[in-house]
């Protein structure tokens, strides 16, 4: 019984939150890594692309709710998601035309593109605030819980409750579907193969007749789709506030770099690694240890590696360790 209680506690406060957070990071990091692989720069505007797309999706959701359209047990936001993706795609492609293409034609060094993307980030951020404001926006509807803590306690007779938010479960499911589709696209379609070829060796790909502008456009389209999906899932699961997405940039980049920039599989692994580390390093294992050790002994301290104040330091630390010992990331990406 005690062991079960300990496991449930661990599930509730470590495994479930880290799984949903990890999925959100993985989707974000996939976008970052794709852009790095094809366009060869780190896109700082990625976080604010998420925020912008989520903002548009929220507006769409409100519209649908006003017309009385809902998705039953699923959040209405999923129905509005395509709208958010399309509008954001439009903005991103326009940005590519007016900003990035110029530098690409000049064969500018990556650092110049990175700085250009910082500028885009500020504009995107301002645009988001301008359109939807700076406040918290709640847009989740439908049932809140898949498993709720008091009901779980009553049903199992355990002392500790387990709660799984509907949005957390949805996040994981959507992330799995999105990643599956992406890998199928990259490995089995002609366009996907041309993207991989372009990423592996640009000159060789150009010689074999691949149209670079087309590859770039498709990359932006896919990265935007992933970003907006990640953003909406994050907003549904936590809360939407434009500035939060900017703060999400650090763990997202950490995930992409740890996994190996330019390597999609690495981005997913990196996302979960960062999420699980952030949650478990700052979790206080006091009660879990108490349950798992025999008798009624409980450790006097909190058994917490790091205070929660240092949550963000975890991403930084992992990033530094990986860059020191394996600069190309766990899955051998392109960065050196």
């Amino acid at each position, binding site marked *: 019984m005690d062991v079960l209680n300990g496991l449930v506690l661990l599930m*509730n*406060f*470590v495994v479930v*939150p880290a799984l949903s*957070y990890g999925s959100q990071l993985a989707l974000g990091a996939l976008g970052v890594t794709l852009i790095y692989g094809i366009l060869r720069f780190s896109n700082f505007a990625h976080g604010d692309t998420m925020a912008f797309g989520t903002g548009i999706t929220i507006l769409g959701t409100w519209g649908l709710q006003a017309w009385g359209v809902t998705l039953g047990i699923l959040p209405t936001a999923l129905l509005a998601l395509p709208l958010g993706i399309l509008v954001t795609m439009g903005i991103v492609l326009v940005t590519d035309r007016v900003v990035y293409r110029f530098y690409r034609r000049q064969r500018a060094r990556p650092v110049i593109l990175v700085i250009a993307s910082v500028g885009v980030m500020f504009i995107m951020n301002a645009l988001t605030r301008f359109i939807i404001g700076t406040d918290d926006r709640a847009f989740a509807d439908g049932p*809140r*819980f898949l498993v*709720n*803590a*008091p009901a*779980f*306690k009553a049903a199992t007779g355990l002392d500790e*409750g387990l*709660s799984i*938010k509907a949005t957390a479960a949805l996040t994981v499911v959507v992330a799995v579907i999105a990643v599956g589709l992406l890998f199928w696209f990259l490995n089995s379609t002609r366009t996907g193969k041309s993207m991989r070829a372009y990423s592996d060796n640009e000159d060789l790909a150009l010689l074999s007749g691949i149209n670079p502008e087309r590859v770039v456009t498709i990359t932006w389209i896919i990265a935007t789709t992933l970003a907006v999906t990640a953003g909406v899932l*994050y907003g549904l699961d*936590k*809360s*939407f*506030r434009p*500035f*939060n997405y900017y*703060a999400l940039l650090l763990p997202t980049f950490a995930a992409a770099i740890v996994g190996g920039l330019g390597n999609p599989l690495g981005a997913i692994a990196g996302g979960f690694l960062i999420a699980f580390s*952030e*949650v478990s390093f*700052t*979790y*206080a*294992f*006091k*009660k*879990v240890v108490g349950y798992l050790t025999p008798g009624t002994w409980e450790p006097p301290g*909190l*058994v*917490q590696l790091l*205070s*929660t*104040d240092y*949550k963000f330091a975890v991403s930084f630390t992992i990033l530094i360790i990986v860059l020191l010992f394996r600069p190309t990331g766990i899955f051998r990406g392109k960065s050196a």
Partner: protein
Amino acid sequence: MKKLYAATAACALLAGAASAEEIKLGILFGFTGPIESLTGSMAAAAEKAIAEVNESGKLLGGSTVTAVRGDSTCIDAAAAQAAAEKMVADGVKAIIGGDCSGVTIATLTNVAVPNGLVMISPSATSPALSTTEDNGLFFRTSPSDAREGEIAADIMMERGIKEAALTYSNSDYGKGLAEAIQKAFEAKGGKITLSAAHEDGKADYSAEVAALQAAGGQILIVAGYIDQGGAGMIRAALDTGAFSLFELPGGMIGDNLEKNFGAEINGSFGQVPGSDSPGMEVLQGMGAGAFDVNSPYTAESYDAAALMMLAMQAAGSSKATDWAGKVMDIANAPGEPIMPGELGKALDLIAAGTDIDYQGASGVELIGPGESAGRYREIEIKDGKITTVKYR
């Protein structure tokens, strides 16, 4: 020149007070910044007190008072000091303000004390202000958060809470209040299992809640802001089933508490500065659209301005260092109780040498180093609504 001196001196003797003059009072609130939605009402209430005194024409032999507004920004100490220095250049005798604790401490130490100005703040509640070196020039009509800590500890004790986890907004307000609550609660024999900060404006507080849950406790004390991280902490605690009862200090009591959580936090309780003093109603009647006494610190602002002018009358001088010592006498018993709207009568009484006990809108009672003893409204969430248990 000599003649003029002689004439003034004669006048002063005759009137038993200084001759009529134009007295300037600074109003230093954050008209822009995080509490800009409160300061309009606060300043209007202070100006109401000034207008009332001017209408009576009884202050220091018919002196008139003019208000000079300045923007403290609430968060930028340098901007607040610049605004206060401009007031000094304009020749103000005293400053009503500042509003937020940080800028108040900065202007007090760097501008008011060196220039010998009195400051009466209606809203700075940091315990640090009780011990700041002020040469007796600083007062506040709001209570220190240390007092709120004691009230919170009393309420928890009465409700049989022995162990509680505590989280606070990582700000001057949150930190000060959390320390006050912990100190008072532990002095009464309670135990704070863990005191952990939360950053405002984050999307996800599950890690913070997880640590607090592991530390344990019957309730979670949330010393934060309802429109910021405080709400996120409660949401995460409810979602994970970590806590279902909360102790909610003043920053958490607001319309959004009912709107966001409603019946989910039934049985939770807290305290918010508030008074059932009869003066509140009187002042509300005088507001007439210009201000609303139910807006936080509005009544305190009226009282801050009134105290200054009554103290001047008592000292027979508008010079801050002359009348600073009179503020406590005016505010406290014994004496004739004075309500809002009776400032003219109070000026008459003082001129006649009668003691007064200024009650004002907020039931002013200054203790210790010149801060309000403070009255608090104990609240409990019943059926999703904030209900008043009693005043203490």
